[in-house]
């Protein structure tokens, strides 16, 4: 955002980002050495990257609300509700475009309700989104009675879109570049730039850093709060579209527990529950790190049962490290 944020970037986030980058590289190198053929292959990297897009988008959503001192526990279930809505409509013969936008409407509606209850009614984000988490998941289940919703009648391009790849020839070997991955990266890159450079979005940081001061500085806090929950909802919707398209199924149990993964990734990436900080690059690296660890876990034939413990351990390690660094930089 503005110079201060750059400066903050310089003084805190970027060292953190540099560090995250380092860790990622380290993990990468480690795996590349241990399992060269399996890990370093394009197929694997491609899979890792394109499969982390969903978590990535949800983590972005989480980052945006964290910046304004919020939290959104409902990302996972709104994802499910959105996916289910789109799938049901397409199953019943609604063309893709309107169906997808109906999904957007649903996601935004959830975001708006979150935002209004938080900004206007002044209820804590944690409780509001906790309620929404349960409501959205419930609605998704009610709508589908929990069944897979496939939509054979939908235009083919939608179901292919999720897995479309550009074939790129380097030397005599072909590399498939997944279109969704490219789009997601582009969107996130763009959003990251705007968030840091577009006054409209940069103000989110002020709102999170000190709502009272922001208000007296002529920033319309309520609107920015609501806006951030809407932005988050948009990211969630995006994830839902990709997931529905890629799996060709609408399902009420999509994204169970995703909110915690997203939160963890965002925190690892440098966002803070107390608002005012958070960086797109950091979050990206956080998600990437978790994805690489998950992937490496299996490549090293780790005991599948320990898989689920890794996220928590990484999270705690990250905050512990932060604490240590804070003591050294002295605040």
């Amino acid at each position, binding site marked *: 955002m503005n110079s201060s944020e750059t400066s903050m970037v310089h003084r805190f986030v970027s060292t953190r980002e540099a560090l995250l980058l380092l860790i990622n590289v380290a993990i990468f190198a480690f795996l590349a050495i241990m399992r060269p053929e399996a890990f370093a292959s394009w197929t694997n990297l491609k899979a890792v990257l394109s499969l982390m897009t969903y978590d990535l988008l949800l983590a972005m959503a989480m980052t945006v609300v964290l910046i304004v001192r919020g939290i959104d526990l409902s990302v996972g279930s709104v994802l499910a509700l959105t996916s289910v809505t789109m799938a049901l409509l397409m199953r019943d013969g609604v063309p893709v475009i309107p169906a997808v936008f109906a999904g957007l409407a649903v996601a935004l509606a959830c975001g708006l309700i979150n935002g209004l209850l938080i900004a206007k009614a002044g209820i804590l984000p944690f409780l509001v989104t906790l309620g929404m988490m349960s409501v959205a998941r419930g609605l998704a289940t009610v709508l589908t009675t929990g069944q897979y919703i*496939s939509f054979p009648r939908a235009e083919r391009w939608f179901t292919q879109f999720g897995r479309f790849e550009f074939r790129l020839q380097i030397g005599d070997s072909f590399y498939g570049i997944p279109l969704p991955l490219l789009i997601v990266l582009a969107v996130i890159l763009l959003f990251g730039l705007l968030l840091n450079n577009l006054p409209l979005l940069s103000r989110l940081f002020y709102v999170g850093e000190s709502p009272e001061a922001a208000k007296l500085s002529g920033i319309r806090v309520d609107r920015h709060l609501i806006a951030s929950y809407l932005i988050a909802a948009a990211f969630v919707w995006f994830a839902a579209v990709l997931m529905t398209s890629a799996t060709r199924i609408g399902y009420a149990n999509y994204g169970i527990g995703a909110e915690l993964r997203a939160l963890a990734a965002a925190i690892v990436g440098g966002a803070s529950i107390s608002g005012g900080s958070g960086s797109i690059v950091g979050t990206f690296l956080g998600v990437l790190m978790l994805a690489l660890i998950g992937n490496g876990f299996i490549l090293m034939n780790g005991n599948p049962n320990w898989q689920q413990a890794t996220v928590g351990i990484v999270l705690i390690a990250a905050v512990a490290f932060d604490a240590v660094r804070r003591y050294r930089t002295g605040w």
Partner: protein
Amino acid sequence: ARAQEAPEHYAMVVFLKGSEFFNWAYAGFQDAAKTVGATTELQGPADWDASAEARAVDQLVAKGVKGIAVTAGDADTLVASINAAMDKSVPVLTFDSDSPKSKRLLFVGTNNFNAGFAAGKAIGEKHGDNARAGISLFPGNDAVNQRIQGFKAGLASVAPGAKVIAEVNDEGDLQKAEQVNTAMLQANPEINVIFCAHGNPATGALAATRNVGRDQGDNKIDVVAWAIDVPILLGVQEGEFTMTVAQNPYMMGVQSFLQLWSAAHPTQFDNMNHPGFGNVPTADLDTGVKILMQGDPAVEALMTPPQL
């Protein structure tokens, strides 16, 4: 007071409320109940939490249902509740997933071991000794564990040289399934079969084969699904899935109800309203298993799922 006038009420308890499989089972349960004018309800968690099932059973007993058919998310967890119900003379039976240590009337359903065995056998016959299988599983569910044992045994029975070389935890999540199976295939390129030990990973596993470019051609990976959801069946028809293990959930439901009904009406059998092998102890009912492959008429038949 009202309870008496009202029609007899029976309940089904599942650990994955709303999954297509249990919807089929409940549909059978419902339809069978209709034939004798009884009413039914479906209870249970949507997250594999067997303790929630146990609580559901208790509540139904307290509420005063005539009988309960429960599929045990965890065999041991349900023992106490099932026994309590039986002691309060509310007949309880298990279907699909058994709780053998409990006092349940009987178990209705496919013996999961046998079903797994059949799948393993089919694969063994297809690939012979060079079958190299990876398994996508959700840890901690008894049925899943039995299926895996069955699969291994079935494989060995026809192809002693065949091996299961990797197991991954898909956390029962479609999207996770794609991640872990892709990784599994990367780690073990020699895998030529993915055995899905429960309903959810099938689509993910298939996607995984696509990710590593082995969803067609001569080194296509055979994905063995364990589901009769429409998308899976479509996949079978289009030859994406080599086979899917089809139990007969609808018949499980029907049989479950008839058993409960007859337990509640211990009569001599004369007609449908008095089927009552009530006094005659009934053995477990195996509702059988079928390995569905491309072109099987049953696939078409299953395409229109029950609406609840």
